[in-house]
């Protein structure tokens, strides 16, 4: 979406279609990025329960990764993880 030029965007800050909040990726608010270390994870799902943005990706009742489109980098997952399976790194730096 952000690649549109001044020619393509409608005037006056208009949003032409209804129900487009889902298209807005709040992940780009993030300044710190959580990194998930699967080898340390015991699948207690504390992170999944506590994530305010439902950004822990679950498959077959197991955490398999983080949805960076919506994760705002609050670090709650890292804080609640009893096994240090989540690490926070500076956004834009090396993972």
């Amino acid at each position, binding site marked *: 979406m952000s690649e549109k030029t001044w020619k393509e965007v409608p005037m*006056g800050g208009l949003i032409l279609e209804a129900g487009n909040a889902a298209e807005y990726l709040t992940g780009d608010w993030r300044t710190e990025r959580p990194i998930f270390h699967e080898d340390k994870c015991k699948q207690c799902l504390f992170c999944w329960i506590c994530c305010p943005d439902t950004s822990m990706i679950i498959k077959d009742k197991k955490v398999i990764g983080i949805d960076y489109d919506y994760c705002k980098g609050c670090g709650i997952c890292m804080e609640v993880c009893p096994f240090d399976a989540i690490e926070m790194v500076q956004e834009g730096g090396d993972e």
Partner: protein
Amino acid sequence: MKMVLSGNEAAAYASMIARAEVIPAYPITPQTKIVEKIADLIADGKFNTQFIKMESEHSAMAAAISASLVGARTFTATSSQGLLLMHEMLHWASGSRTPVVMVNINRAIAPPWNVWADQSDSIAQRDTGWIQFYCESCQEVMDTTIQLYKICEDNDVLLPAMLSEDAFYLSHTSEPVDMPDQDAVDTFLGKFDPPYKLDVENPHSFGSLSMPHQWYMEFRYKIALAMEEARKKIVEVDREYGKIFGRSYGGMLDLYRCDDADIVLVAAGSMSSTIRVVVDELRENGAKVGFARLRVFRPFPAEEFRSLAAKVGTICVLDRSFCFGYEGAFFTEIKAALYGIDNPPLVRGYVIGIGGRDVTRNSLINIINDSNNPEIKGPVDTWVDLKRC
């Protein structure tokens, strides 16, 4: 139809003949008669419009913007302190690209209280993204109000416009005014049909948020482009109006006896008529004096001033306002427009008529004599008719 109308009555009739559909307004001296006259026209069954009595000018402009977003042709009027209270909403009107048309009566700003002619109120709104016109006669108030709907509602423009008329000199002075024929105005203006409007059948979001990395800057760029479009449209509409209704006003910059002039006076508003009389008188005596009436302040007629400057020796700029800490706004902007041209004329600034002080024949003769003074080298602002010790 010929009538005897004040500038305020002309504005009220113009909103009727242009078929303004929504008029939110709040009364203030010396604009009150516009609101009263519109109320009269509605009560007499002559004007079918939605008139909304507002609790403040800020709310009046908010209502005007909302009405315009629905797709209604909108009119309002204010003055001085009322215009200042609207300031926030003025930005909102241009930002949301609503072609609201407003008549502003140029009145001094308090303190001390002063309800007389002074253009500081509209000059203070220079950067709000509004098209700005200054009128010379009640007839021009009528004709320009109609023209403004044609300019602003153009899909390449879609910006609000304010028309300013000087307090009392125009707002309360009656003169014969011709109101154009309703059918001709209907044909000339057509219906207001914006590309996007508030419509439950086809919903859009208005007044949304735009992040720094998104398009806020692009939206502002589009307003800048729309102002450039308005520049062309203003000249075009004035010419077309002249063909149909027999009256036009020189587009952006109204030139009077400038062709072979050595000295040209520049001013806006009601003092223009006095200046024309003085120019005629001096011309009779052989002086090569002309007058350029600043009809449009935004967009600024920079190109027009550059053409004029190529032909004249001295430009005397008369400001009925003052930007404290620098100089009169017209003076500043005209000099900026002439930056870098070959053989620029001498440009002199005069602050005059502040707080409604009369601009007389003698004031103007003194200015012309002063500009001839070889002692004066650079541009300086001179306060005319100041009580000096």
